[in-house]
């Protein structure tokens, strides 16, 4: 058997990319099919129901729950401002009345005679969705959102933190195997997507945040640096909501590892262009990898599309990256695909492949321990 399938990360000069921009609940779509949109244009909006605040009047006014309704000064559906009297006890012979003054604004949604609790609903919360990717609206999902399509250069990273961002691409490293250190980050990189080479240091990411960069992309990073930067040890790879001041994307993995030459060259060739980046990573149930999308100009779109291999097919000659020690991070081509399982040093039997490394050396590794460099 000379063929096998294995997943890989996409790195390509040109691809027609679609992204879905969906509201969390139904709302209003503001654009139409065929519209050209910019990355920051709002394409849909809605209002989320406001926050809910329960207020137990029975406890607060020392009343039996059943008496709360008749002591209410406002009724279900009424709007309340902070400081409005909500309820008043009858007192003793009309004297010594207790009044509860609201500490929250909102609308009375429910009054319970069982618990003496009222539910206040705050103002609706507006939610807007931007286009994220500059391109053309190709589908409107009624009341939900849109699908945007654009021809882009596309790089998938392996891991990221932080959410969506946009900025001009700027190179900080000259070589793919150059470490990204703090001295390579300058004030001019404000609002930019900084492209490094090999491992990025904690000091470099911190400096990028200081100068106001929107994102940093590099080959690797130390887990200890990630922990220091986040302020906690990341347990599971579900990211994207970190509030750390910028988006960080690792293209290869953790440790001392250089960015793949192909990825570096591609990003370098697009220096100065505006990119949309997203660090959100989710490894479980519907894999999501961080991404760098760089829309193509009209003249670039006219160029021939590069021909590629069949997606996911592990075949002789295809570029692969070894993703587990003892050869972690090494890049080469598939040199052979022996059919019979072989015994590994660990004692396990597994199907393997031969990888002809860029250095000229040939190594044998389990098929599970490589990924294709897709393009």
């Amino acid at each position, binding site marked *: 058997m000379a063929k096998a399938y294995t997943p890989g990360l996409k790195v390509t000069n040109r691809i027609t990319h679609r992204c879905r921009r969906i509201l969390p609940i139904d709302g209003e779509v503001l654009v139409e099919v065929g519209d050209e949109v910019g990355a920051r244009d709002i394409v849909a909006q809605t209002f989320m129901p406001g926050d*809910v605040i329960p207020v137990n009047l029975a406890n607060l006014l020392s009343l039996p729950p059943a008496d709360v309704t008749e002591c209410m000064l406002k009724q279900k559906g009424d709007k309340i401002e902070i400081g409005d009297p909500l309820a008043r006890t009858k007192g003793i012979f009309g004297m010594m009345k207790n009044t509860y003054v609201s500490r929250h604004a909102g609308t009375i949604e429910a009054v319970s005679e069982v618990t003496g609790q009222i539910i206040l609903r705050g103002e609706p919360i507006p939610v807007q969705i931007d286009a994220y990717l500059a391109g053309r609206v190709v589908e409107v999902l009624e009341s939900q959102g849109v699908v945007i399509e654009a021809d882009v250069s596309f790089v998938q990273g*392996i891991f990221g933190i932080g959410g969506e961002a946009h900025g001009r691409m700027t190179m900080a490293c000259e070589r793919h195997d150059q470490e990204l250190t703090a001295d390579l980050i300058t004030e001019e990189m404000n609002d930019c997507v900084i492209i490094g080479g090999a491992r990025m240091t904690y000091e470099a990411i911190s400096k990028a945040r200081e100068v106001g960069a929107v994102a940093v992309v590099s080959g690797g990073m130390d887990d200890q640096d990630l922990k220091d930067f986040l302020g906690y040890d990341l347990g599971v790879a579900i990211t994207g909501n970190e509030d750390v001041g910028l988006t960080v994307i690792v293209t290869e993995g953790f440790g001392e590892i250089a960015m793949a030459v192909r990825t570096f060259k591609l990003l370098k060739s697009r220096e100065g262009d505006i990119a949309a980046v997203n660090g959100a990573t989710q490894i479980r149930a*519907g894999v999501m990898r961080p991404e760098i999308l760089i829309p193509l100009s009209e003249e670039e779109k006219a160029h021939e599309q590069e021909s590629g291999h069949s997606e996911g097919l592990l075949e002789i000659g295809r570029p692969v990256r070894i993703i587990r020690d003892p050869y972690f991070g090494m890049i080469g081509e598939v040199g052979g695909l022996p059919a019979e399982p072989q015994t*590994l*040093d660990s004692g*396990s039997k*597994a199907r*393997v492949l031969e990888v002809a490394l860029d250095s000229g050396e040939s190594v044998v590794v*389990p098929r599970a321990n490589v990924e294709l460099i897709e393009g």
Partner: protein
Amino acid sequence: MNQIDPDQVQVILATDCGSTTTKAILIQKLEGVYRQTHRGEAPTTVEEPFADVTMGVINSVTEVEELSGRKLVDESGRIIQPASGDEGCDIYISTSSAGGGLQMMVAGVVAEMTAASAKRAALGAGAIVMDVISANDKRKPHEQINRIRELRPDMILVSGGTDGGNTTQVVQIAELIAPAKPQPRFGKEFTMPLIYAGNKDAAPLIEKVFDESIDLSIVPNLRPKMEMENLGPARDMIHDMFLEHVMAHAPGYDKLMGWTDAPIMPTPAAVGNILQRIAKDKKINVVGVDIGGATTDVFSVFDKTFNRTVSANLGMSYSISNVCAESGMENILRWVHFDMDERELRNRVKNKMIRPTTIPQSKEALIFEQAVAREALRLAYIQHKEFATTLKGVQQQRTVGDTFSQEAGGQTIVDNMKLNLLVASGGVLSHAPRMHQTALLLVDAFEPEGVTHLAKDSIFMMPHLGVLAEVHTKAAVEVFEKDCLIYLGTCVAAKGLGKPDKLCFTFTLRGDTLNESGEMNFGDIRLLPLGPEETATITCEPSRNFDLGAGPGKKIEQEVRGGTVGLILDARGRPLRLPVDRPACQKAIAKWVDAIGLYPEPEEALV
């Protein structure tokens, strides 16, 4: 579903639709006995672009078809039923944990009482419990409401109050849930199922709290009295709701439900089912563990009481980094008998997390991964012991005689000395290169005491058999015994602590193939050859500080069974304490690794 005459059943087909893989097994009646004969697997097809679970089912069954030479799928892509000649099957059943399994939120009035009972009911029904809301969970009401809004469970279980007791508090819990308007995970048109299993007197009030956005079902109270749990009706309703709502909305399941001869069961519920049946049939106490990439499930049956826990973020790939964070790298490295660079290891752990399908190539990587597994299993078992307790909040009548042994409610019912069978499943245990590694992983992590049989689920067949037990118990039990479990052997371990190299126990073994006697000093571990199907009688006399089941210093005599590993005599003491000093710890581990023969040099290996 077809009416089945158990005596006529010759061929059974079962599938388990997992998150990533759909596994099919074929069971056939051979010379009057049911045996598992072939298996196949294929990627699960619940997610886009396929979005139809039956495609993965048919693909896995087609593999079985090719291996067995038996035609199981017809031209229209349906499973052929009933069997005739070389075609079809008499029973087709399936379990499912695809799409993340059954995810639930539970609520109760008091965290340690009704909320704990509700959690037990949900876990027992095979659910992942996303959060437990209670009046005393230390969150403010608006924080609880926000949390309910954030979650997107498949269904909600609410309990609270004993029958005839106070109704206000459970209504208050319902009043937190109603305005939060929880959204279900699947389908916008789908109304959120909510099961109420609390104080029966509060049921009419609960009905008034919820509007049409909630599909309310009322079942008998799961804690009708403080000293009594009644989890059955709530569990049954969870299963019904799982089929009616969750499964019906998952892609392709409406079709799959039409094919099966028994309701589709959540995978963990099926595993729990078969373990309970085995415990009941054999009158034994059982612990089962399934360690996966993201979670570790522990099941136990002690004195007929079943418990299941899911340690949500203890796993060997997606969650490996969390195991290291929770346990601490120093606790993991104590199981490794050579030096490793911690910074480098941290990077390796994260690389495994982001590329979860990789496998250890070098022996060093395998040893480290198995060290992580020990800690994941150990932590999951601690969580299980803390959860599997006697009921809390029960008033106890005491006599003067109880003065010195006052046991409060909430004591764990997990007793390693009473444990008879420990069953392992999940990649790191099932696919270890040597079964010796699986056996010692179990012993190190679970620390069984006295005499305990060790086994592993050969090809993760327990889910299939769990649901089969519902329609054909005989077939399920026969296959479980003959093909599902691979007996690794028996562990005989002394409880207690002593001084190094001082006598822990003496032993004498009498059997057809093994006749030996000797002494075990504190700190020793030994492996004696006792093969599959072989048994021997062991007589042990512990020193006065040690207990092997009959009490400190008291002799035991018991039959032990062999297996693919053999008989492990463990005098390392319980609780198992590793030397704190790193070099001394490495030395101890190296001695144990050598004694059991964990990592021999492979004859021809890739370096």
